[in-house]
């Protein structure tokens, strides 16, 4: 792996205790992201995509546990940092955009106050300078009348506008890495298009690396250069965008693509993946996808396959493929 890496995560596992037992939300996840790169994480609910990002930012709830061989961000090991030092990174070098624009702002403070809070904390600006900076940010994300909106409470803004303000907050300290956790899922299609366009524009302008989380393959295809597919807490496939969508390897990735009609691609049939998403408390043994897989073999039921490099930059976790790229079975 190159020296240009911004974030390098090796064997990250996260779990949290619930009343019904231990939920192992993320298991042995390794990935990296370079400066200015965009990585997409796709998967269904409970696959561990959000928890992965929260773990990197160390924002897991109290009952959560994070373990990893290493989690290096620009050479610093995030796991060994004190909470104090982590706070200096959060919002400053690493920022996050959340799914629910309606609930992610504190209702009792103005938009401006909440933006300036981060700006003043990390950049040490005075009140006036921070206010100007926050108005600038609002302007940059295309909010009309930013001076006025700056003094409004979140309640007065529409969902789309709030998500713009959330993006303004995330980029306000020019972070090197942004985690965008389903930022458009709660929005309508036409508003989603606005936000996606805005994020593409901003990424070019400020050259930030973005980890984009979504359950929507189309959104991921549009926003990411590299895509990581997760299932039941594990990475099942990582590939460049082109490879992943034109030549998917893992049966789950293939299944996902086939189970959703696409506006651009004509297909007369919809082939669903049978079964249900596994309960995180009872993941199946062996390959977690085996109960739903059409190519299931005996080994799949007992042994978990390794994540192997199928081609340059294309890794897959499946017994159908071996190190050399040959295909087993049918």
């Amino acid at each position, binding site marked *: 792996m190159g020296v240009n890496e911004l974030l390098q995560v090796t064997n990250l596992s996260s779990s949290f205790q*619930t*009343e*019904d037992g231990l939920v192992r939300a993320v298991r042995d996840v390794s990935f990296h992201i370079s400066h200015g790169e965009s990585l997409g994480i796709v998967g269904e609910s409970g696959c561990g995509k959000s928890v992965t990002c929260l773990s990197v930012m160390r924002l897991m*709830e109290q*009952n959560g546990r994070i373990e990893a061989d290493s989690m290096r961000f620009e050479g610093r090991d995030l796991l060994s940092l004190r909470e104090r030092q982590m706070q200096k990174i959060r919002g400053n070098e690493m920022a996050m955009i959340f799914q629910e624009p309606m609930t992610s702002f504190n209702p009792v403070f103005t938009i401006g106050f909440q933006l300036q809070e981060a700006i003043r904390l990390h950049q040490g600006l005075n009140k006036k300078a921070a206010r100007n900076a926050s108005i600038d940010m609002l302007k940059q994300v295309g909010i009309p009348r930013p001076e006025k909106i700056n003094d409004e409470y979140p309640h007065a803004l529409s969902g789309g506008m709030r998500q713009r303000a959330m993006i303004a907050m995330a980029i306000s300290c020019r972070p090197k890495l942004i985690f965008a956790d389903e930022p458009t899922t709660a929005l309508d299609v036409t508003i989603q298009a606005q936000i996606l366009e805005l994020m593409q524009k901003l990424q070019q302008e400020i050259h930030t690396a973005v980890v984009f989380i979504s359950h929507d393959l189309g959104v991921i295809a549009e926003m990411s250069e590299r895509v990581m597919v997760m299932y039941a807490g594990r990475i099942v496939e990582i590939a460049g965008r082109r490879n992943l969508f034109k030549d998917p390897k893992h049966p789950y990735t293939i299944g996902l693509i086939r189970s959703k009609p696409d506006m651009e691609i004509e297909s007369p049939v919809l082939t*669903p993946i*049978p*079964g*249900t998403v*596994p*309960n995180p408390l*009872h993941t199946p043994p062996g390959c977690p996808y085996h*109960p*739903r897989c059409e190519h299931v073999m005996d080994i799949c039921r007992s042994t978990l396959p390794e994540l192997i490099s199928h081609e340059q930059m294309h890794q897959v976790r499946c017994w159908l493929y071996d190190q050399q790229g040959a295909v087993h079975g049918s």
Partner: protein
Amino acid sequence: MKFIKAADAGAPKTEEILSPRTIIWRRFRRNKIAMISLYVITVLILLAVFAPMIAPYERDDINLQYREQPPSAEYLFGTDRNGRDLFTRNLHGGRISLSVGIVASSIQMVIGVVLGSLAGYFGKWVDAVIMRITDMVLSFPFLALAITGAAILGPSIYNTMIIIGLLSWTETCRLVRGQFLSIKQMEYIEATRSLGFNEIRTIWRHMLPNAMAPILISATLIMANAVLIEAALSYLGLGVQPPIPSWGNILEPARSMDVLMRMWWLWLPPGLLIFISVLSINLIGDGLRDALDPRLKN
């Protein structure tokens, strides 16, 4: 035609059928403090029920030779100023105090649930009228009015039950209304209409059972409160009247500093009994809240 056998793969794993009630009971049982409280209150209730059989003396038997006796083997809790056995009277006092609590909270439950569900289900002017009445009762200076009521109706067990019941239904009413308003938004209630069910079935079978959980919690808290109010009224001489004993009126003589100073056995046991029973009921209520509130699952 191919059927999707899909869902079978994800069928529930356990053999046992987990009804919501089983789950709640299971969660409640895990709460040690609540379980201990359940045992304590059960014992207290049993003692009260079987008081006449357990008590060593007749309830109102006066024995002037043995007045103001401190606790001894013969008189476990000592005797009062009339020479009545305090152990006996405390046993019987529990009978009275706990039944006042139960009856009073049943009265308020009936009023609260009926008015609350009417307001919540029908909304509009029904709701407006009921909520205004609730506001009025809610702004009564509770104990002051209870005292006034007790003085006017004349202090007695029944009047105490009625007064407490009539004054404390507002919380239940608001709660039930709130529950009904939020349950009404649920799609399963809309479904009852799209399936052609009538309103009585909808309320009785689909809304009330789902509103029961918080009502139950609040019922325990209100019952605890009713026991406290009865005790306070009786202590002030405005509740249950001697010679019928209640935990509250047993320690009424302790209003005199002289008695307070000399006869600790007169006021300490009934005071502790009230405290322990109210505490147990409250802790059970708290345990129920934890068992019923799915958000606390975390």
